[in-house]
């Protein structure tokens, strides 16, 4: 078991929302009063089918029973990250992390709900986002191992060399 005080956050381990998301959905549906029945069912199914996947380049979320929906986006395309917590979410320790790309829609492309370590997740996404770090890859890789142009030039040189050698012999 890990020490509870030094929990290292690993986004790749996130697959399902926390069970308190269901509580949050129940409270939100109850607050609408008579709308509970109509609202709760889709919320329940969304909670039951909601799946997250975080990999090296991007993240995806999918949900839905009849109409399935899966969104995938790469970290580098993130334009801005919004973290919202209303009072009920704060009580339950939840938050909504909304992620936006440069598309024209006014609603966020992806709303990650039901993550307890929302702050850590946001900072993880922030470090993956464009402009969060300096471009140090330029200094790190001055010569790429698979530089096709260089390989081709070397071939041409070698061909010329052998040809020159052949000419001087005759």
């Amino acid at each position, binding site marked *: 078991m890990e020490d509870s005080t030094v929990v290292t956050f690993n986004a790749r381990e996130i697959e399902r929302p926390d069970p308190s998301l269901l509580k949050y959905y129940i409270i939100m549906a109850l607050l609408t009063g008579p709308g509970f029945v109509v609202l709760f069912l889709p919320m329940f199914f969304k909670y039951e089918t909601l799946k997250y996947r975080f990999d090296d380049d991007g993240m995806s979320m999918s949900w839905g029973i009849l109409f399935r929906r899966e969104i995938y986006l*790469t970290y*580098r*395309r*993130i*334009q*801005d*990250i*919004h*973290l*919202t*917590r*209303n*009072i009920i979410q*704060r*009580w339950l320790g939840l938050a909504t992390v*909304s992620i*936006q*790309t*440069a*598309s*024209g*829609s*006014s*609603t*966020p492309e992806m709303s990650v709900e039901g993550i307890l370590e929302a702050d850590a997740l*946001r*900072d993880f996404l*922030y*470090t993956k*986002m*464009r*402009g*969060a*770090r300096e*471009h140090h*890859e*330029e200094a790190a*890789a*001055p*010569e790429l191992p698979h*530089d096709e*142009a*260089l390989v081709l*030039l*070397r071939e*041409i*040189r070698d061909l*010329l*060399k052998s*040809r*020159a050698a052949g*000419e001087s012999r005759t």
Partner: protein
Amino acid sequence: MSRGIERAATWMYRGVWGVLTKWFRVPEHPPDLPVVAGETLQKFRPSPGFLSYLKLQYWISVVVFTLVVSVLWTVLSLTFPVAGLFLIPVAVAVIIAPALVLYLAMYLRYDTTWYVLSRRSLRIRSGIWEIHEATITFENIQNVTVESGPIERFFKIGNVIVDTAGGGQTKTAHGQESSNLHRGEIAGVSNGEEIRQMILSRLMKSRTAGLGDESFEHHAGWSPGHITVLREIRDLLQVSTH
């Protein structure tokens, strides 16, 4: 006398603040941003001028509301004198209760708004019931606007608005603009121009269009390795033509 009231008000305000942080889980500390070692964050609230601006707005609306209620009460008591007499406490309550709540809300709004700037990005926190934190890297910013109205200029404050690509502002049923998520607003700061210059200077250094494209500059052009081989080829050709 007024000092006593002031002290009581601060004491009460602290009580409200305590309830908020404890029961409503309003964060006590300003937001943070991940930083590189040795980097310092700039954390600030709107300038005090913004509070004066909000107060002016508040008093104007209170005066207008009081006038409306008193006119209604006068009309009513002229037609039904007895009912008018009974309605005096109601009218007073209708004026005072929202005024108190709004005054508190104004102070809370001021105290819960935070702006955090790092060398690479900004984070804006606002709201009491729904706390909203937006994070935008400077590299993704498309344009920076500084705007201020005549009253805001009187209080020497302005709003810095940064937009990222995308948008699609939606209008609500009442024709008001709903919050646009592709936008960050640093409202009520006294050094708006300074902030804009700072963001713009960061923007100029960026070589991309801020649309998620990478800079491929280090792939273009010739590396020293290429140049050496090309020189060798030239020399070989020179030898063979002579």
